[in-house]
């Protein structure tokens, strides 16, 4: 597939691309560190998520909240408010990604409702401004039609903005 330029014959960018394709060495113990965390999180009974996993998740959430407070002025310890997000879409899976879950596409699924095609999730968020979007069936990015579009999305994905007061 050749698109905007021919990388083979492009004298300047060809060598750059070749250089960028070279392997980058990461810490060889990285996999072991991940496995150590997972071993600590997996109870021997085989249940999916043990208390340590939740503790790790809570620590991660606390860290993320601290960083958000630094960047966006949200206070981690502030009282939270229940927020329901809703999307009507024919889909087999809907996730929400945003500032409140570290843009993790695997973190926050919406539940299908009794009405066909309506998906909901309830979040508890401290006051602040949050950018977010829905990820439908793992491939379609859909902004929330109920909230205004964010004007400052850095990467061009359709993004909504929610203000919790």
């Amino acid at each position, binding site marked *: 597939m050749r698109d905007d330029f021919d990388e083979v014959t492009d004298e300047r*960018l060809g060598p750059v691309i070749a250089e960028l394709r070279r392997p980058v060495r990461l810490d060889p113990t990285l996999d072991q560190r991940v496995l150590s965390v997972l071993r600590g999180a997996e109870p021997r009974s085989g249940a999916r998520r043990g208390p340590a996993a939740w503790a790790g*998740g809570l620590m991660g959430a606390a860290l993320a909240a601290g960083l958000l407070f630094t960047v966006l002025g949200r206070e981690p310890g502030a009282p939270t408010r229940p927020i329901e997000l809703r999307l009507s879409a024919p889909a087999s899976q809907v996730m929400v990604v945003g500032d409140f879950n570290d843009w993790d596409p695997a973190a926050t699924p919406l539940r299908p409702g009794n009405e066909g095609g309506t998906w909901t999730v309830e979040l508890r968020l401290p006051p602040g401004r949050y950018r977010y979007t829905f990820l439908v069936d793992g491939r379609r990015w859909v902004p929330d039609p109920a909230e205004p579009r964010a004007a400052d999305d850095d990467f061009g994905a359709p993004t909504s903005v929610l203000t919790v007061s």
Partner: protein
Amino acid sequence: MSESDAALVARTLDGDLGAFATLMSRYRDALGRYAFHMLGSREDAEEAVQDSFLRAHRALRDCRQPERFGAWLFTILVNRCRTSQRRLFHRRRFSEELRDDVAATADTSSSIEWREEIARALAGLRPHYREAFLLRYVEGLDYAEMARLTGAREPALRMRVKRAADQLRELLRDVHAG
């Protein structure tokens, strides 16, 4: 013949961490390369890759197409890098990290200066230009897959890749391969 991703995902869901270790070893280099060039720091790249593996394991039951585990994992990493990018307002550490990286390899086929110039040029791109360029020409994704990963439309992605290429040519105009 190596075991398929789908089989490894199934074994991981049955509690076999060895299967997940195989999945990690299968994808860690590609993930590491993308994260390193996107974030400009090996330390940040390792953190992003490690976090992506943990997130993937935590949410593995939501991976609806286990035969496409790699693409699903890459989506997690791309978003993780975006989050890092949004947070990182401090000055980057490209030169120091690259020196460490080059020093850690036995391969001297390219000079440290050459790699530093490339890193500086990449760092000079707007993040979404850099993202598109790396996904297209370093990771070799087609535009449909890039659109699925990033949420951006294909015409916008083509424009970003073109602008990134134009800017890189300009930024590297007086630099010669080492």
